[in-house]
């Protein structure tokens, strides 16, 4: 009952994590186990790409001996791989730009204008959270194939934008509402129109929120699988997730090559994540705190 606070493990006094100090060994042990479980499959895929098929058949859980780079070099030499990476990048970039442009506009209206139907408009977007993409995908496919969007990247981009908007608006609206009225008044006094205020003040001031939204949607688009699976018939339009799946089926006997291809496909996401780690982790937790 009368346990003292251990100043070393800081179990009770929670101060800023930067102030150093070592936790108890048990915590480190559990953390290490957790990390091992999380990372091991990823490492297995990367290391497996350095093995040969005969090595993998003989001992599926072994270490490369000798290390063999040819799987990776052959993936890097595949035009297909680069085309899929290009498709993924193109779709993700356009999606992000469109979501930011449309999302900031709508959020600005919701945050800074008073008008009849404002609440209804917010409810409309918020209701989007109740419409899962997995449900809408069949009718979306019907709509897109009957339209000029069929078999173009836009057939994936536009639905992604639409389904990304609710979360974007829910994140950005409070952000824009928090910009002090005084700034807007000062801008008006200085002869700035409402739209001028939007461009010169709102867009720069909401940049942190915009970046969070942009990163979340970029990762979402980069990883998206079901939408491209439904929309694209032509392998020339495949994105990386579709391409990995197709490659693994086409080369099901060549496990080492599949592993190399898979690692190369996840590399961009990992690099992107390590650069923006803070914002992704913070943004995701921020995004759901509603």
């Amino acid at each position, binding site marked *: 009952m009368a*346990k003292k606070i251990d100043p070393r493990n*800081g*179990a009770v006094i*929670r101060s800023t*994590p930067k102030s150093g100090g070592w*936790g108890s060994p048990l*915590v480190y042990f559990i*953390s290490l186990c957790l990390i091992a479980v*999380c*990372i091991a499959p*990823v490492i297995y*895929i990367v290391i497996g790409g350095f093995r040969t098929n005969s090595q993998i058949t003989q*001992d*599926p*859980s072994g270490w490369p001996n000798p290390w063999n780079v040819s799987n990776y070099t052959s993936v890097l030499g595949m035009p297909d791989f680069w085309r899929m990476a290009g498709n993924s990048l193109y779709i993700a970039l356009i999606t992000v730009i469109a979501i930011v442009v*449309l999302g900031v506009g709508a959020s*600005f209206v919701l945050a800074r*204008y*008073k*008008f009849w139907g404002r609440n209804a408009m*917010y*409810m*409309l*977007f*918020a209701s989007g*959270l*109740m*419409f*899962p*993409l997995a*449900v*809408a995908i*069949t*009718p979306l496919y*019907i*709509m897109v194939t009957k339209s000029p969007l069929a078999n173009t990247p836009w057939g994936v981009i536009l639905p992604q934008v*639409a389904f990304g*908007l609710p979360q974007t608006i829910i994140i950005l609206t409070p*952000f*824009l509402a928090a910009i002090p*009225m005084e700034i*807007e008044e000062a801008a008006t006094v200085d002869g700035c129109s409402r739209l001028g205020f939007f461009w010169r003040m709102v867009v720069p001031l909401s940049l*942190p*929120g915009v970046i969070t939204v942009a990163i979340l949607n970029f*990762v979402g688009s980069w990883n998206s*699988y079901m939408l491209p*699976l439904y929309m694209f018939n032509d392998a020339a339009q495949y994105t990386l997730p579709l391409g*990995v799946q197709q490659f693994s089926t086409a080369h099901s006997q060549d496990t080492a090559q599949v592993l190399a291809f898979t690692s190369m496909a996840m590399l961009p*996401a*990992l690099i992107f*994540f390590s650069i923006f780690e803070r*914002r992704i*982790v*913070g943004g*995701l*937790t*921020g995004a*759901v*705190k*509603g």
Partner: protein
Amino acid sequence: MSETGVTATAVPGDALSKVNVRGGGATALPPSGVRRRRSKGLSWRGRLEITLLSGPAIVVFVLFVIVPVFVALYYSFFAWKGYGPATNFIGFDNYTWTLGNKDFWSAVGHNFAIAGLSLLFQGPLAVLLALLLNQKMRGRSLIRVLIFVPYVISEAIVGIGWRLMLSDTGAINGLLHRLGIDSIVSWISDPKIALWTLMFVITWKYIGFAVILMLAGLQGIPEELSEAAAVDGASYWQIQRHIMLPLLAPTIKIWAFLSVIGSMQLFDLVYIIWGQYIANISGTSTMAYFMAQNGRLSGQLGRGSAIAIVVFVISLVVALAFQKFVMNRNTEGALTSKED
């Protein structure tokens, strides 16, 4: 006490944490920044600005999120393969086919099993890990990053990795062989095991997200509370149990909601690991998998639309029931700021 959890789900250090203190659920509109504007009607100029700024977003949203539901409703009454206009009106046949299909109901069962098992295992595990990691220790930010890696990689890519590792001649059985266990386990195809395999992969993929979410929630709890309890002689675990856990409840509920909604939509992992046909036999098919299989992939778009409507209704009922019976209890005070 409940009023102290103002920023229970806010992330310190993140720019977002300062804006959403009013909280109150995703469906509540934050008060507009406009406070002192005179309440006269909008000028034509104001209307034009509103239309210009929000019009495109509304059009795209309505066209690609709301309209599809009605499109699905329309085509669900036709036997239609996607060529030419739909003329073969068959009434409710697609619905009776779906609702009378054994595979559909087992898929529904799997969705609910996955949702339930996620809450049962992932939730407590995530809370426990977050409580453990919510301490002063070296390398905490590195741990945060590393447990998040599975979440960031595409389902398709980790799915391929797990499929290879879990196959009969894969690395997991190889590892077991190394440890002296020689029986080959069919992790993917054995119907007795497959659902648990899927649960394991799901937990692996999403536990990092749950832990990060819980950690963010824990960091919103004021330190004074646990300090005061410690002064009063409470032990470490007493503090966790009686102070941290109750104050974390709003975060746990939000996570649970997201987890249940996610479970209802599960598709990518099942489709990648089990392929287009095997999930039905191995007992891991989900509603979205069933829909893809019997709709788009078999060219039966009318039937696929009917399945979509049924899935939509099921998901909506689950989401609304969850909102009503879980989310609204006790969360009001804990999520609302005192100094609103």
